[in-house]
């Protein structure tokens, strides 16, 4: 049911790569301006979509790199409003999907937040602590504004849940590659292909894989089984260490690996 996300479907279909490349950047990290530059650099280097994190004080799904980036962004004054401004400037180039924790959405009010996100040009939302059972109100609000509420599936998700999640998915299904939080890992987890296969059988939307993917080799392996590759901590680390140039270089290498 890809009713809500023509821009996202097109980005997956027209990537010109073995899989669409979706780098993750933390909005407001290291600063609002620098996160815009980093996003533009990622697009110039071959990103097909961007996942833009809205910093939250207590990000339970995130490992140390993204947690620290969120803390730093908040420390330098980033707000959800400011990050929506970043979204607005990046969304003219590629579809932007906001990664935002439930409390930010609920505190603004579900409808208010969705209106603001749609108004800033976002194509979708990923809410990592809003599992399927809790998501119907937000999904309805997103559908009304043409935003895709992208669900997550984990290796621990039962077959019954995969069916239900896949049937209600909008935009794409975010398949969590491993049992754990975000962060770079030396190896791809065993059983990933099987997890992706289970998801693909349950949904009509593209299947993207994230968590634990950092190197061009890993991205290329994932591209063999999935429609999209999400790279988070490695790109966030580059934003902290090398700014827009660093991000461009990391994303460029990933894009290159996915083209061949």
């Amino acid at each position, binding site marked *: 049911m890809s009713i809500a996300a023509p821009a996202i479907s097109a980005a997956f279909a027209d990537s010109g790569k073995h899989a669409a490349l979706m780098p993750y950047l933390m909005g407001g990290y290291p600063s609002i301006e620098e996160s815009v530059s980093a996003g533009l650099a990622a697009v110039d280097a071959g990103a097909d979509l961007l996942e833009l994190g809205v910093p939250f004080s*207590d990000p*339970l*799904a995130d490992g140390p790199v993204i947690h620290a980036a969120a803390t730093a962004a908040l420390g330098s004054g980033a707000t959800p409003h400011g990050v929506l401004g970043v979204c607005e400037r990046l969304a003219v180039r590629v579809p932007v999907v906001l990664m935002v924790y439930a409390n*930010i959405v609920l505190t603004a009010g579900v409808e208010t937040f969705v209106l603001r996100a749609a108004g800033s040009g976002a194509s979708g939302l990923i809410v990592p*602590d809003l599992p399927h059972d809790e998501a119907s109100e937000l999904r309805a609000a997103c559908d009304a504004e043409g935003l895709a509420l992208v669900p997550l599936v*984990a*290796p621990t*998700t039962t077959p019954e849940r995969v069916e239900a999640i896949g049937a209600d998915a909008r935009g794409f299904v975010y398949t969590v590659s491993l*049992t754990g939080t975000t962060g770079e890992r030396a190896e791809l987890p065993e059983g990933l292909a099987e997890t992706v296969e289970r998801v693909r059988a349950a949904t009509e939307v593209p299947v993207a894989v994230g968590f634990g993917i950092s190197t061009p080799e890993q991205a290329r392996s994932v591209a063999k089984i999935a429609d999209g590759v999400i790279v988070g901590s490695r790109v966030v680390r580059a934003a902290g260490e090398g700014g827009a140039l660093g991000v461009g270089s990391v994303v460029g290498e990933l894009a290159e690996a996915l083209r061949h």
Partner: protein
Amino acid sequence: MTGAPPLERRFGPYGGRYVPETLIPALDELEAAWSASRDDPAYVAELDALLRDYVGRPTPLYHAHRLSELAAGAVWLKREDLTHTGSHKINNAIGQALLAQRMGKPRVIAETGAGQHGVAAATACALLGLECVVYMGTEDMRRQEPNVQRMRLLGAEVRGVDAGARTLKEAVSAAIRDWVANVGTTHYVIGSCVGPAPYPALVRDLQRRIGDEAREQLLDQAGRLPDRAIACVGGGSNAIGTFIPFVDDEEVELIGVEAAGEGLSTRRHSAPLTTGARGVLHGAFTGVLQDEAGQILEAHSISAGLDYPGVGPEHAWLRDSGRVRYEGVEDGAALAAFHRVAELEGILPALESSHAIAWLLANPSPGLSLVTLSGRGDKDLAEVLALG
């Protein structure tokens, strides 16, 4: 546990399961295991025997005569400080460790603030032969050094958490991240009636023994129900355990005492119920200290066990329904109450419990007051002596 309420996922609008998808199957498994175990005679018999022979239950209900004079009415203390390990936390830790064993999970993780839950979890794991890892903020490790040593002696690994204010909130977050990564082998023994469903109901079920015993003891020893039942509220597990058996006794006033820290008008307190904000923290929609954008604020309290920006979702519902009144007590009043109880009754109360005593002393009444003394204050000596 005959007559136990159903295993709620929501309390009015509060509660829920706001956690990564990875954990949902484990929460389902836990819910099923607890539904089955709490009515299973074999589990109940095993738990009852351990609580009696190992923990020392039932704990005494003590008529505190000199404190009664000061409070202008009869004061009865429910002596959770007299349990093995010295606080009510052991009731929950033993119950959940037994449950972990039944679920076939060889590894247990826990968070701790004051260290009392960490010690209780480490104790239960030593008793049952389970591996135990306790997450603790490094600021709390400093404030509660003896409990850190205690946990290590009991064979637990204590992992310091350096994020944020380095207190309980960050310890819970670190424990949840560990659980996300190790959910297949690990049970998370959460220490209070907080977190995603079914934890608030599970912990309540295990802690209601406090109130069940106190109710029966009062009827036996005083011949009547209390006019007021008073307990301190951080996450709120000793309070929910005290209150639940009295909820249907309409004549019993229920008062939860939060830590007002340096004052409710400052941002330096731990009183989300008294001050009213609502949000999602650690998997539940509940009372939370947060800013206008939804970022969680740091809490403050003189007592590490109350130093938490959230609270159990059932408390938020009991507040909204009007059944329980929640009020704040500041650091200074709690410290003064600590000294009064020591001098008048020969009991060193935990700084957490001292908040409940302080509320009692500030609100004297000729009626009968039941106060839950949730733990002993030995762990707080360094902090109290430093403050003078």
